[in-house]
């Protein structure tokens, strides 16, 4: 099986936020929750870069490790998913996540969080593939339809890549060699404990 990863080639990202919009639309993500976001570094200064970031589906995922009810599981494609039936909204996965991926609807008293929501790599959840229940809780299951995550699929500059880690790393490697520069695979060292060697 493939080891699915995201790779954002920051030298190509034009901060159009189409990935953010596509994700929200594809999965009917509730108001106030963003599964994907674009962050601009050094904004307005020389060397400015934008990076599109969501759940990186880490190796040895910190969210899964700290979850007090073990609601996370990793699919055969190494996609990190969770069960909203088991989630209690404690927030620990947000404390542990290096990428700020887990999101919570505000419900209940004080700062009580609702069931956590995060990027599913367009792979749904524990419910039967492509069922209505799965769509309502987790959004579209594009992987079950043989498609890749929409954010990367429709990226206008092909900055955001999704797919088997080996394949997208090779695409990035060839790009860097071709154009002669690359500002690196953002988040890879933290998420996968390896960067792409050029």
């Amino acid at each position, binding site marked *: 099986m493939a080891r699915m990863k995201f790779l954002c080639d920051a030298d190509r990202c034009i901060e159009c936020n189409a990935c953010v919009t596509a994700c929200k639309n594809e999965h009917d993500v509730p108001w106030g929750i963003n599964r994907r976001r674009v962050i601009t570094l050094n904004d307005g200064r020389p060397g400015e870069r934008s990076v599109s970031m969501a759940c990186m589906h880490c190796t040895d995922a910190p969210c899964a490790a700290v979850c007090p009810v073990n609601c996370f599981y990793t699919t055969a494609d190494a996609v990190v998913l969770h069960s909203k039936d088991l989630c209690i909204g404690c927030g620990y996965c947000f404390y542990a996540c*290096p990428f700020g991926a887990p999101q919570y609807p505000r419900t209940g008293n004080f700062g009580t969080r609702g069931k956590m929501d995060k990027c599913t790599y367009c792979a749904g959840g524990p419910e039967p593939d492509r069922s209505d229940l799965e769509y309502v809780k987790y959004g579209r299951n594009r992987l079950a339809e043989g498609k890749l995550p929409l954010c990367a699929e429709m990226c206008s500059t092909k900055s955001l890549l999704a797919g088997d880690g080996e394949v997208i790393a090779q695409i990035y490697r060839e790009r860097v060699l071709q154009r002669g520069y690359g500002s690196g695979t953002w988040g890879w060292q933290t998420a996968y404990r390896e960067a792409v060697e050029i």
Partner: protein
Amino acid sequence: MSRSKVVGFAVLIVLVLLPQSAAQQAPDAAPNPTAQSVTEHELLRQLGRIDGRITIPDAHAATLEQPRGREYQAFHERTLPWIGGIAIIGMLVTLTVFYLARGPITLDTPLTGMKIKRFVWVERFTHWLTATSFIILAVTGLNYVFGKRLLMPLIGPDAFATWSQWAKYMHNTFAWPFMLGLAVTIGLWLRDNLPDRYDLEWLRRFGGFLSRRHPPARRFNAGQKLIFWSVVLGGLILTASGLVMLFPLSIGDIGGIQTAQYVHAVAAMLLVAIMLAHIYIGTIGMQGALDAMVSGDVDVAWAREHHRVWLEEEGARTPDGPQLGAGPIPAE
């Protein structure tokens, strides 16, 4: 070609051919746009995390990467269970050994039947308010750390998730009566828990637990004062760190919430262990101790042995000398 055009063309050629360092040049001779660009490695090395600007309303989402989450993972899954396990199991073992070796602390003199008021109802109410909240908070709090290891294998993931959901609500809700109880506790008992001249002697003789000879004490002995100050300091630390988590990201950022977790969890583990000792000595560990907090009255024999100076001071408070009778006071 006019002279000015020639000059302009020459300048252009010079500019294009101006030697650029090899590192800044791409194969197609275009300038390298990453020469000045930020790099992940450098940003993480300088700041430990990467923050930027974001266009969605959630300002906290502007943190691109915080690898400290991995350290939080190590703390929560390795360090914390060990700290808690050693503190709590260590205390239980110590108390069991003490109980088996020493047994309950009984009175040396027979009960007199005469009672003296030790805690008025406000004090008892505050104590049990704080105690009940604390036990609920402790059980539901420990569930966050040990539940999935101990309870989930027994009752299964679905039942455990339902229980944990309620445990979370209870933890968030009972925090408030605990804070109230803590505040009133400080107000009621701070004065009697300031150090006095009997404390060093009490500590030196370890309260007479082993020698069976009671050192003198006023209303609270040095051991009780240590419990009081543990509750006050521990409770205030838990309150402060708990409020940071109760209102996530309202005080500080993700780093602040992680620090609050470290402090909250470690302080709670230690305070639970200390409270186990307090519960032991207040119930099966000492004859007559529970009466003080249930009915509020203690036997004079108990007061004489455990709090001699307090008994004398209480006796001296009335103009007619010690008023230790158990009967109701006649209504003039």
